[in-house]
Each structure stands twice: as structure tokens, then as C-alpha cells.
């Protein structure tokens, strides 16, 4: 046993797969400790907040400030409000309304703004200008007003009598240390369409999906193994019946069967466990077939015949004389089943036939909601790409482990 394990861990492929898988598992256990709470809590009001660090503006305004005189601060501020395209667009406005722009240098911000303030009128409707373009100029005008705003922002509160009373002021050179602000929220992967923290949800979903995969793999392997053992060892009419059923299941495409069953049990009954069960029930056939062929080659070996002569029962023979010889193969089959179970859940959920949605997050459901909210067309990559990456990593690591095991146990591949 010890020797086998040493051999297994000697395989670099297995080792890499194992490390990735364990890393994912560790994240699943450790991350919720760092960031506890309900992964389905809708913290954001609104859809798809970008990944980044969010600082409470309210708290920041009340945090003690340091004065920093940074040379490029004004330029950065200006660039944010008035881009080069905006400058060109301003000139377009001037020509559309017949303003004299003789000798105007568009990089000369002051001259440009002065001319703009003197000539822009939101009520003017230049001929042929679209509503969208006029709306754009209105927004630009608002931004330009910001540029020209006073150097200090006044914070005021309604005092007695309802009049505004000055509480404080913020100047352009005021900076706060993020570490001192009471509320700073880091959302490494932003929020999803429901305003949930994607990373937190992803970690929890990976866990659920692995559990679904394990359960599905377990069910499929158990069914496949027991039927394969029976069919291969007992043979005769028993073999015929089992192979008849297996063949029927093999010719019907598994995924179609999966869709039909999931659809007919109805959404109300479709919890994560039920979906895992359904996946397991539809994917046992190839395990069964290969176990059977292995058993057939084993059943006439001397030690089995010896056991038979000694009067051992059928189950004892199967359990002690046959199973240990195909155990390594079964473990590999199990790993593949887990991997395909996780993929099957993702595929089903993407079609809207996965587990019902309010209870637990799964990788497939996250992708389903991202797709329903067109995350792929509106550029919200953080809502689906990390999910795809996680699924890929999990399956990749499981398949890698499987290949590694194969190299160790399969005599034809052994170096």
C-alpha cells in the first residue's frame, strides 16, 4: 500500500493534478473563514459592479485627511472629465453652430472652455444633429461645469429649521488613508447580476459542484461496479439481462436522457442532491461495461477457481478475489465520473434545468444567470469567466490525476 502510494505520488502528472485539486479544496475551506456570511446575500443594489476596492464615500468624508500636493493631480482630474475626443467634439459643436474658431488651439484648455461657456446653449438644435449627440453635449457641458467648480466641496447637513448648515469642506488636495476609513470592501471579482459577491459565491459554488460531482460519481460508480461485477462473474442469463439494459442505456445519448429526466421531475423537486442522483443514474453504463470485461478476464484465473473449490460464497469471491484486482481501475473510473458529473451539472444548469436557484449556488447556475443577464455581451467578464476557469481547473486536475494513475497501474503504459 505504502509502496503504491509512493509510486502514485512519483507520477508528476498525478502530483500536479493533485496539487491543483487540493488547492481548490483548501480555498473552499479557508476562504469562508476569512470572509464569512451567506454567499447568496445580495450586497449590491444593481447589477454587475466591477471588480475593485470600494471605499465608503460617507466614511471617507469623515476621516481625518492629509494634505498632499501632487503635481499631476489637476491634469489627471481634467483628463477624466475632458478627454481628447471631447475636445474634438466641442470643435464640432462650434462649427455646427457657426462659432468663429479662427486660431483656436484645442490643447489650450482655458481658451477652449471659455469659448464653450460663451457659446453653448442646450436649447439650440443644430440642423441634422441627432438627439443622441445633443444628449452627449448636455453631459459634456455638465462635466465642464465640474471642471470649473470651486476648489472646495462643502459638506452640509440640514440643521434646525431645515436650512443647510456647513459641516465641513473638502479641498482638492485632501487625501485619506484607505486603512483609516471605517468601511472598505474589496470585491476581487465584483458582483453578479443580483449584486452578490462573485468570489464568495464562486468558492461556495465550487464546493457545491464538487459535492454534486462526488455524489454523481459515487452513484454511477456503485451502480456500474455492482452490475459489471455481477454480469461478468455470474455470466449466463444474468449477463444477458444486464448487458441488454446496459446496451439500451448506451444507445440513448446520455445527455438527452439527462435533459428529459431533469425536465420531467420538475423544478420544485430539483435540489442539488436530486440533480446529482439523476446525473449518476444516467452515466453508469461505461463503468459497467468495462468492469464486466475486466471481470471476465479474471474469472477463470487459478485463485478464483481455488476459491470456488473451497466453497466460498459468490459475494466473498467477488469481494476478496476479484474486486482487489480491479480496484485501481475503479478508482480511476470514479475520478472520471466525478469530473463528468461536474460538467454535466454545469451543462444542465446552463440550459435552466439544474438545481432550483434560491438554495445553493452552483457553478452551472452562476453561468446560467450570467447568460440570462447577457454578461457576455455587456462586457461583464467577471460574472462568467472565473466560473469557466474554475470548472476547467477542477476537471483538468481530476483528469490529470486519472492519467497519472493510469501510468502507474496500467501495465502497458508503465515505463
Amino acid at each position, binding site marked *: 500500500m505504502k509502496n503504491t502510494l509512493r509510486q502514485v505520488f512519483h507520477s508528476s502528472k498525478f502530483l500536479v493534478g493533485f496539487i491543483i485539486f487540493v488547492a481548490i479544496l483548501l480555498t473552499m475551506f479557508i476562504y469562508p473563514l476569512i470572509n464569512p456570511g451567506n454567499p*447568496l446575500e*445580495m450586497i449590491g443594489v*444593481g447589477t454587475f459592479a466591477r471588480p475593485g476596492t470600494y471605499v465608503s464615500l460617507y466614511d471617507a468624508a469623515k476621516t481625518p485627511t492629509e494634505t498632499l500636493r501632487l503635481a499631476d493631480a489637476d491634469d489627471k482630474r481634467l483628463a477624466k472629465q475632458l478627454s481628447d475626443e471631447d475636445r474634438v467634439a466641442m470643435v464640432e459643436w462650434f462649427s455646427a453652430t457657426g462659432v468663429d474658431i479662427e486660431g483656436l488651439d484645442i490643447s489650450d484648455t482655458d481658451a477652449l472652455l471659455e469659448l464653450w461657456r460663451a457659446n453653448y446653449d442646450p436649447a439650440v438644435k443644430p440642423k*441634422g444633429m*441627432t438627439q443622441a449627440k445633443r*444628449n452627449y453635449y*448636455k453631459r459634456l457641458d455638465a462635466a465642464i461645469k465640474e471642471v470649473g467648480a470651486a476648489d472646495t466641496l462643502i459638506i452640509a447637513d440640514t440643521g434646525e429649521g431645515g436650512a443647510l448648515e456647513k459641516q465641513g469642506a473638502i479641498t482638492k488636495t485632501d487625501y485619506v488613508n484607505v486603512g483609516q476609513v471605517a468601511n472598505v470592501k474589496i470585491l476581487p471579482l465584483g458582483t453578479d447580476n443580483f449584486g452578490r459577491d462573485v468570489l464568495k459565491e464562486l468558492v461556495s459554488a465550487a464546493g457545491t459542484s464538487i459535492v454534486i460531482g462526488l455524489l454523481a460519481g459515487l452513484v454511477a460508480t456503485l451502480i456500474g461496479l455492482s452490475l459489471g461485477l455481477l454480469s461478468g462473474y455470474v455470466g449466463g442469463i444474468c449477463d444477458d439481462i444486464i448487458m441488454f439494459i446496459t446496451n439500451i442505456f448506451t444507445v440513448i445519448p446520455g445527455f438527452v436522457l439527462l435533459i428529459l429526466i431533469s425536465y420531467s421531475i420538475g423544478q*420544485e423537486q430539483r435540489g442539488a442532491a436530486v440533480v446529482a442522483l439523476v446525473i449518476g443514474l444516467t452515466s453508469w453504463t461505461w463503468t459497467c461495461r468495462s468492469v464486466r470485461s475486466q471481470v471476465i478476464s479474471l474469472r477463470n484465473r487459478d485463485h478464483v477457481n481455488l476459491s470456488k473449490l473451497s466453497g466460498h460464497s459468490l459475494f466473498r469471491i467477488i469481494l476478496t478475489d476479484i474486486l482487489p484486482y480491479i480496484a485501481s481501475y475503479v478508482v480511476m473510473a470514479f475520478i472520471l465520473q466525478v469530473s463528468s458529473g461536474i460538467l454535466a451539472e454545469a451543462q444542465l444548469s446552463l440550459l435552466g434545468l439544474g438545481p432550483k436557484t434560491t438554495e445553493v449556488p452552483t457553478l452551472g447556475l452562476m453561468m446560467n444567470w450570467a447568460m440570462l443577464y447577457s454578461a457576455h*455581451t455587456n*462586457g461583464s467578464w467577471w460574472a462568467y469567466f472565473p466560473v469557466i476557469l474554475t470548472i476547467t481547473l477542477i476537471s483538468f486536475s481530476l483528469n490529470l490525476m486519472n492519467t497519472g494513475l493510469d501510468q502507474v497501474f496500467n501495465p502497458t503504459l508503465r515505463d
Partner: protein
Amino acid sequence: MKKLLCLAIALMLALTAIGALAETTDLPRNETLYFAGQQWGSVNSWNIIGTNQNNSMAIAGNAGGYRTLMFETLYMYNFLNGELIGLLANDDYAWNEDMTQLTLTIKDAAKWSDGTPVTAADVQRTFDIGVEIGNGTGTGLKGYIESIEADGNKVIINAKLNDEGKPVNPLKIMDFLTGTPIAQAAWIDTVVERNNGDAVSILNDAGEDVVWSGPYTKYFADDQKVVLIRDDNYWGQDESMWGKLPVPKYIAHAIYADNPAGENALKAGEVDVCQQFIGNVQNLWLEDGLPISTFYEEAPYGVCLTMPTAWYNFNIPVLAENPALRKAIAMAVDYDTIIANAMTNQSPSFSDVPRSLMNPTEGEQALYDHEAVADLQWAGMDIDGANALLDEAGLVDTDNDGWREYNGEKISLNAVCPNGWTDWQASMEVVAAAGKNIGIEITTLYPEWDIYQTVFTNPSQTDYAIFMWSPDAAAPSNPWQRVNQFMGGEFVGVENNWSGNWGQYVNPEADELLKKIPLTTDAEELKALYTELTKIYLTEVPSFSLMYRPSLFHAVNESVWTNFPAGDDGRNIPPADCTDGYGIRALYELELVEG
């Protein structure tokens, strides 16, 4: 020889392919206005008095007014101010003293496409045939209109009277003026004759030979697109109507597979007017810099006329017997999240426009006394309030499993809407989350539309506990019509109920008040009645609205056309996709983008 044959076949195939292409790509871009979000699937018929036409560009009654591209109504409705503007009829409709009779006259200039004048007799025949064969007009209005008489060019509409000799509902007669397209009497006779008077075959007649009065007519229709072409003999170019023809020569609607396909076509400039919900629509111009705009530049971007609503099923005892439970769930729901999520803020919040029976337009908001019901309203997310209400009503967790019980049984409900209706699904998720916060188990359920529609319209169903549907948006008979849908007893027990009160709520007091409104003309009295109804609604909570929503979405891409209606242009044209009610006026004022 074989080679020659192959060549010939290849040539033939190529020619057909070119021919097919030529047929569909023929439309000159700068004479065509492209639409999305109206027509799904291919057209079934052009029969204006039939049913099941699936012909949205030509035959569609919307909540914002009838679509008058091909068939015209007597009046056009402007939902911005509730005005009726004469189309086939002059602006002279008048009630008699006790509102039992409405008279109006048909415009002299109004003509059918075959050159014959539109007459009062056509109006009469349109109504009569409707009652006879039971189409939408007939079944919808026969309870309110006794008869229509024609006297020269004068139309006399006699209201149906109740036992007391008063009209049943004058408001519904106003709906007839704006909501019923008029068909030609002579053409109706032809259709009746060729179907031997059989009602079912008349309803299903394809109506290829239909006579129309509107500015456009059919040009091309298959499963890929529908095209209407301008009728340059249109009577409306007479000075008494528009004085000119509408600007685009063609109206085209490609048939898209789904919303994202239509949205992408809008972004690409292949669609000019898009009647689809687009999440975060402002990003199209703020981030993508596309020449796309909506009616208002700022949120809510459109005119919200309706409120998608969650209905409680009164066939389920725990809901029917516990007003406190109904109110508690409604109070605990986080509406701000729903509005930010499902509507991406294209709806005013319930703190801006407090909940009542009215849509957020100024006209309807003025119809009830805000002060009088302020104590009853809620803005949502009030977990403590909801918990207190439940505790007080004795709905407590007796076995300490975290869920409240009623009569010893755990309260477990489902929240249901059709699968794929993402904004509604998101809302149901938020409702379910609210349940968790107050110890009421609510699970979401998204059946396919085919199943959903048969269940929620079934008056005795107990499968769905909380389910979604929208009441009517805007018509001359609103808000009465909508209030009736919220609480009207007339819909209770009606099989295949698409009309209203889907939760089967019964309240005789509300019914009494509802009967009075159509006959009330005094503004103060009307306000008192609506206020009283609002009080009942907010106390009893037979349903709760989740958001406000436009009845039509209206996003336009100005790559080719411009001068679409906008909120601040002072023209008072409603954002009704340039096609519905008074919104069609936009078609006469469109301009090509220069350059």
C-alpha cells in the same frame, strides 16, 4: 453530357440564391424604418376582424393605443396627457346629458384604399360583426355598448344600461374610440359571404384581400421579416389630417430569435426603433458611445405606465385567511434591489412614487389623497415591521425550526413566474429572499410559459401561491380598469381568465365602489372613491406591485433616422414606437441624418 447537366444545375441554384437575396435585401436603407421587439414568428393573417393574426406590425392593440399603420381607429390616444385626437373621426365627440349616448362624425376626407369614403355605416358594421362572430371587439365591448347607429356621417353609440337605467360603464365606450380598428362594411360582407356566415371560419379567414385606410399596407412577409410599404394614395395627406405622407417608405421588422438578437441589431444600427427591455440601456451611449437614445435621457428613460405585480392566490387558505401574512411579505421585500436589478433603475422607486393603485404619471397620481393613505404605504425592506406584524397575528415559530407555523403547519409558499422572463425571475428571487428574513419559507419556481399561462388563468388553481402578472397600462378607461383588475369581483371564477383579479380576491365593498366610478364625473367625489379603494387595497394587500414599468420600450438608434420623439422636445408625442396611438405622429416628422 453529365458535366453539362451539373453545370446547368449549379447555375440554376446560383440564380435562385441570387434571386432570393435580391428579394429580401432590396429595401433602400434611407427609405426604410427598421423595428425590433414587436413581431415574433411569421404572420398568420391580415384579417382585421379575425383572431390570432400574429401580425403585430399591422394588427395590434397595445396598452398605449392601437397601432394605426394599416388599420385606423376613430381616435388616437396620447398617454402622455390622456387626450383623444381625431383620426377617422372629427374632434367633436360628445356625450348626452346622462351619458347614455355618444355621438361623433366621420371625417369627410377619410377614404378606404379602394377609394370609397369611410362612413358611419362602416363603424356600425365593424361593431355588429364583432358581436356576431365574437372577436375581441365584440366580446370585449358587448357588455357596455347596446348598439351603434349610423346617420349620414354621424355615428351614434348607445350605451348598455343597467337595472337603474344608468350606463354600465361609459369609460369602456371611450376605449372603443381609441382601441377598435374600423373595417370596411363592403369587405366584411365579402368575407361573410365566402365563409357562408360561419363565425369560426370568418375569424380564421386569411383576409389577403383586406381593404385598409391607413398610410401603410402589406408588401412582403415570410418567416424572416415583415415589410409594410407606404400607400401614396393615403387619404391622410389631406389638409384636414396630417397634410403630408409619413416619411419612411418602408416599415420593416426582421424576425429575431430572441431579445439579445434584437438588441445586437439595434447596437449595429440595423434596427432604428427597438421595443425591447435593454438592461442598463444608458451604457449604450455612456460606455459604447452609440447614437442610441431613449425618450428621457435620465432614468427611468421611458414613461412607466404599468406595475408588474405579485398576486397572492386566495385559493390557498393560509394566504386567504391572513391579511397580516400578505402584508408582512410585501413589507419585507427589497424593492430597491428589484428596481435596480430587474429594471436596472428604469423605474421610479417606491419611495419616489409611493405604492397605490395608480401608475406614476402625474394625471393618475393626482387621483387619490396621498395624505390619507400615507400610514398604510410601505417602501419595503421593513423586516422588523414585518416580523412584528406576524408575531402580533399569532403566526409564530412554535417548534423552533426557524420557520413560522399556521395551525401547526409550516408556512411554505412558492413564488412563480415564467422561465426565461429574466427580470421577473430576478424579482421572484428577491421575494424569496425576503421570506427567509421573516421566517416564511418561499421557494422560486419557473415553469415554461406554456404551462404557466394555463395555470395562472385557471380560477381554481392552487399550484402557484405568489405569482406575477401585469395589470393594464394606459387607456381612456384607466385607472378604473386597472383598479378593477386588482380587486374586481367580476373576474372571480371566470375560466381561462386573462382579464383581471388573477388571485381570486373577493371584497363586496370594493366592488360597490368600483361600480360607482365610471358614472362619477365630479373630480372631488372621484378622488374620494379612489382614495377609499386605495385604503382597502393597502390594508388587505390582495397583491403587491414590484416595480413600475413602461408598457412599451422605446430605444432608437439615430444612425439613419433622427427627430424621434424625446421628453424635452415640446412636441408631446408619446414614446409609443412611432406606431401606436398618437405616437404615429413621429413618422410624419422623421428626418434623415445628414452626411
